[in-house]
């Protein structure tokens, strides 16, 4: 089988389709580390964690943010099913900053023993998400 030259990327969340495009290369935050994917990759199903992702189309690189999902990788096609996802350009820097501060405050409260275990987990995830979003949006800024 000839190696395909591009990857058809389908990036969806329950709410909407984020990307539907042919790309040349992409990187995803897999549960066991980052994965770089080029056309012709061996078929794979992989869990994703919260993190930054990017894909390259020609010379242009697009950054995005993905959390809690799966990716199905086929030689000529990649399907990403994520619970939360955003394009770097859509991320509101100030809102992410505010979310990060909120999450940090919440964690501080947990440390003082005022909130339950469940809230701790929730705050931890929120913080993780906020930090990643900030990183991703910074990428987008340096690029533009």
């Amino acid at each position, binding site marked *: 089988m000839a190696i395909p030259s591009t990857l058809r990327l389908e990036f969806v969340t329950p709410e*909407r*389709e984020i990307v539907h495009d042919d790309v040349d290369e992409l990187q995803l935050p897999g549960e066991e580390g980052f994965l770089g994917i080029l056309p012709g990759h061996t078929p794979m199903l992989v869990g994703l964690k919260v993190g930054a992702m990017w894909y390259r189309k020609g010379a242009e690189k697009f950054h995005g943010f993905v959390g809690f999902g799966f990716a199905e990788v086929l030689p000529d096609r990649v399907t990403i099913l994520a*619970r939360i996802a955003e394009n770097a350009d859509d991320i509101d820097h100030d809102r992410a900053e505010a979310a990060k501060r909120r999450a940090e405050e919440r964690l501080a409260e947990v440390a003082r023993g005022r909130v339950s275990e469940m809230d701790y987990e929730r705050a931890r995830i929120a913080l993780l998400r906020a930090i990643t979003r900030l990183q991703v949006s910074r990428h987008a800024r340096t690029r533009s």
Partner: protein
Amino acid sequence: MPSLIDMRRRIRSVKNTQQITKAMKMVAASKLRRAQDRVIGTRPFAIQARHVLASISARVDQSHHPLLAKRPGVTSGTTMLIVMTSDRGLCGGFNTNIVKAVGKFLRDNKEREVSLGLVGKKGRAALGRRGFPIRFEYTGLPKVIGFAEAESVAEAAIADFTSAKVDSVHLVYNEFKSVMQQNLIFEQLLPMAPIEVEKKEDGIDYLYEPSPQRIFDELLPRLVEAQVLRALLESSAAEHAARMTAMDAATRNSAEMIEGLTLTMNKVRQAAITREIIEVVSGAQA
């Protein structure tokens, strides 16, 4: 005979109402367009998720998954209805139709134990006090319905289903068919329709980073959430469509009313003038 002044007042008040209904119609129309786009936006995920599930279904044991479990009571035992209504009124038969359908279901299934999950204030107002157990109430939905809302509804349903409090869960909602038409949908949410096993035609052998069973287990609830989300969005699109038609009809009715009132007003006015002339003429003759 009503006095002229009274009639003028009445016409003015109807005109004001007409302006409001016209504005509401426009607002509903623009909201509808956005709501429609959001409904369409949910489609790719459901399709892709089903596709991925199908491709791994051959490698996992489906029979033991709690969300797929067909307990003997699926069609006769306890069930939960998740009823989706709107928070606000003035949308024609939108909520009435839902409440009627639920009422019919309750009458037809007297022997079954039915509990309700109510979404939207109107549903709570109509069904909240009928003596059926209410599993959850969810009112005050945000203007933009997102995944978080669907998640909380789906979580409640999944929790009751897996803990065997109910044997099945159904969704009752209005589906957006067209601006003039909303379809009433009564669909089963849990147990889920079994995932069809895909025949491996090309014999692809996947690498799995977590095990296929884990991926399967984690993807299934996502699919339930996606179904709930779609229902919520359909319901909101249908609500805007229903409001738009209702307000359009109201605007037309008020135009008719203004016409009628103006006609009677002119008749009254003319009668008064005629009477005055007769009085003047007969006064001059005397």
